[in-house]
């Protein structure tokens, strides 16, 4: 870790070199990994979405210090948004609406046109991403509003409740008007199209994407899209952190009363943190829905919220490179273990002694406990958290500042 630094404030040159190095590695990765099978790239695709989620949650938990246990709700909102507006589901919605309230339903059919009543709505990626961001942000602010006076444990319990409420909504919002198709989930969500190229590959191409004459597996195409989104997220959250707004968030985290006394309108600034954090969750959710082609309430359980929170906390709360590291490890590691555990046991013992699934959970839990014991501030915490008052250090600083 000492070789890589991402501190653009104090060591810009080293930081940009590190970033370039990581970027090159990330660009090469899918070409190497897909030699060993597309499932490896697929794991990282999902990991990238989780990194986006973790970075979004980091705004709420890391910067503003608001412990949010229901963050996966915004992931769900984004996924269901793409499910509703980019699949045949809207036709089902209209059908149930016509049955339940013919006047409104038929008015909508006239308004949208009969094709939509037949095939549903199919918005393009460029409409879905901003829509998901905005709608999730709105939900973030709405769910944040009642919690403004709460802190710590109380806030955690209320947000946990909100997360569950959203999931239960998704589970039951199929009757009388079928918004979400209930527990069955929404199927046949359009794959993402970038400039007319479907990232899932055209039908019959065997999930191969043609860009001009160049062919690449579908998972690689998604990889690059998600990588671009993660880079955008890192860029945006990084800039937010070192801004007037980012300082206001941290001030609220450190001491809310003092922040108020310094003229920060804590209500607005907190709502903004909830909304900004949620918007990244929404975009990640929309990507997830389109990538899987299917959403159902099961994907948005409390365990997922906790997994995302664990990425933030274990990586290094409030520190963007740490959060990314946490996301990579916790999203990819369980999947890697799933692939490695069985063959490894076969090789060592000649038979599978412990089921992969069991061992995976065991190792995952063990890793969490170990990290919290050995590095309570996270694997890669912000540098100034490690600083200790130290005479030698202080002297160095003074010399550096006078020199």
């Amino acid at each position, binding site marked *: 870790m000492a070789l890589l630094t991402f501190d653009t404030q104090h060591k810009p040159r080293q930081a940009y070199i590190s970033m370039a190095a990581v970027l090159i590695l990330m660009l090469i990765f899918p070409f190497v990994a897909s030699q060993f099978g597309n499932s490896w790239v697929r794991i990282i695709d999902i990991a990238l979405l989780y990194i986006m989620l973790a970075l979004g949650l980091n705004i709420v938990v890391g910067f503003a210090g608001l412990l949010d246990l229901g963050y996966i709700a915004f992931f769900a909102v984004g996924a269901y948004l793409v499910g509703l507006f980019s699949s045949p589901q809207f036709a089902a919605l209209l059908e149930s609406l016509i049955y339940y309230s013919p006047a409104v339903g038929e008015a909508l059919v006239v308004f949208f046109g009969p094709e939509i009543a037949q095939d549903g709505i199919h918005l393009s990626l460029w409409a879905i991403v901003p829509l998901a961001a905005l709608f999730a942000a709105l939900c973030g602010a709405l769910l944040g509003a009642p919690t403004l006076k709460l802190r710590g444990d109380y806030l955690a319990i209320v947000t946990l409740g909100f997360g569950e409420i959203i999931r239960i909504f998704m589970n039951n919002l199929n009757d009388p008007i079928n918004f979400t198709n209930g527990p069955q989930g929404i199927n046949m969500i359009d794959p993402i199209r970038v400039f007319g190229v479907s990232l899932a590959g055209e039908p019959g191409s065997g999930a191969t994407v043609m860009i001009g004459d160049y062919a690449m597996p579908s998972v690689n195409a998604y990889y690059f899209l998600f990588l671009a989104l993660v880079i955008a997220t890192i860029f945006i959250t990084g800039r937010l952190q070192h801004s*007037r*707004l980012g300082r206001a968030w941290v001030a609220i985290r450190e001491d809310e009363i003092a922040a108020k006394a*310094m003229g920060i309108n804590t209500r607005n600034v907190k709502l903004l943190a909830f909304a900004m954090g949620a918007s990244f969750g929404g975009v990640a959710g929309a990507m997830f829905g389109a990538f899987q082609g299917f959403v159902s309430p099961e994907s948005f359980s409390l365990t997922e919220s906790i997994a995302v929170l664990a990425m933030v906390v274990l990586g290094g709360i409030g520190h963007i490179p740490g959060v990314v590291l946490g996301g990579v490890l916790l999203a990819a590691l369980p999947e890697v273990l799933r692939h490695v555990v069985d063959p490894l046991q076969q090789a060592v013992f000649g038979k599978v002694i412990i089921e992969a699934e069991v061992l995976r959970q065991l190792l995952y839990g063990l890793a969490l406990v170990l990290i919290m014991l050995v590095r309570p501030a996270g694997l890669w915490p912000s540098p100034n958290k490690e600083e200790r008052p130290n005479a030698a250090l202080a002297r160095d600083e003074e010399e550096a500042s006078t020199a």
Partner: protein
Amino acid sequence: MMSEQTMSEPVLLNIAGVNKRFGGLQALTDVGIRIMQGQIYGLIGPNGAGKTTFFNVITGLYQPDSGTFELAGKPYSPSAPHDVARAGIARTFQNIRLFGEMSALENVMVGRHVRTRQGVLGAILRHKAARIEEAAIRLRAQELLEFVGIGQFANRTAKYLSYGDQRRLEIARALATDPQLLALDEPAAGMNATEKLALRELLVKIKAEGRTVLLIEHDVKLMMGLCDRITVLEYGKQIAEGLPAEIQKNQAVIDAYLGGAH
């Protein structure tokens, strides 16, 4: 109360008729103060006299049951602390409340929040106006750190500063909001004699810049030499108001501090 207000400066803060009740306890009864522009105004009283309560009412942390509030001739409503800060009253706290994990410089930069305006777009795009504002915030924050005498610790994490420096940092942070009135709640609490002397110099320096200061303090000696006028509270009531020399001779004040009937 006895002496005429002879100064020609305009009234900066005019507060009258403040009442505040906590359940069965009448914490403040009809308290009021008038602070002239450029004064250092002292608020003293024994423990539990209601000084900090009064302070919290002025700065919007507690809602008063009644009272009129005027800053620089304009009525202000102490209904929310951030509105009070915007109106031009900045405060420090009796128990230091810094943003511990932030550097000293960042602490002061937070103080500029209320006088600056860049939002989400400015933060992300860093367009010209945002960069200019950010540079101005940084420059002003560094100036203020130098002003209070801890410029060399700009990058030190606030919680690792020494006690006296933390007090100074809190003052710098309050000054960053461009206050018309700087309200300090027991700034000398827990300081040794040397630190007190340095604090006193700092307050004189702040006054010399033309700022008005409201000061709560226990250390009567420090207050007598420093303040232009003093108000004394006891059991939530104002028992004396006047020049330091008058306060020192006031029988009610002496009784309050030493206990009556000795």
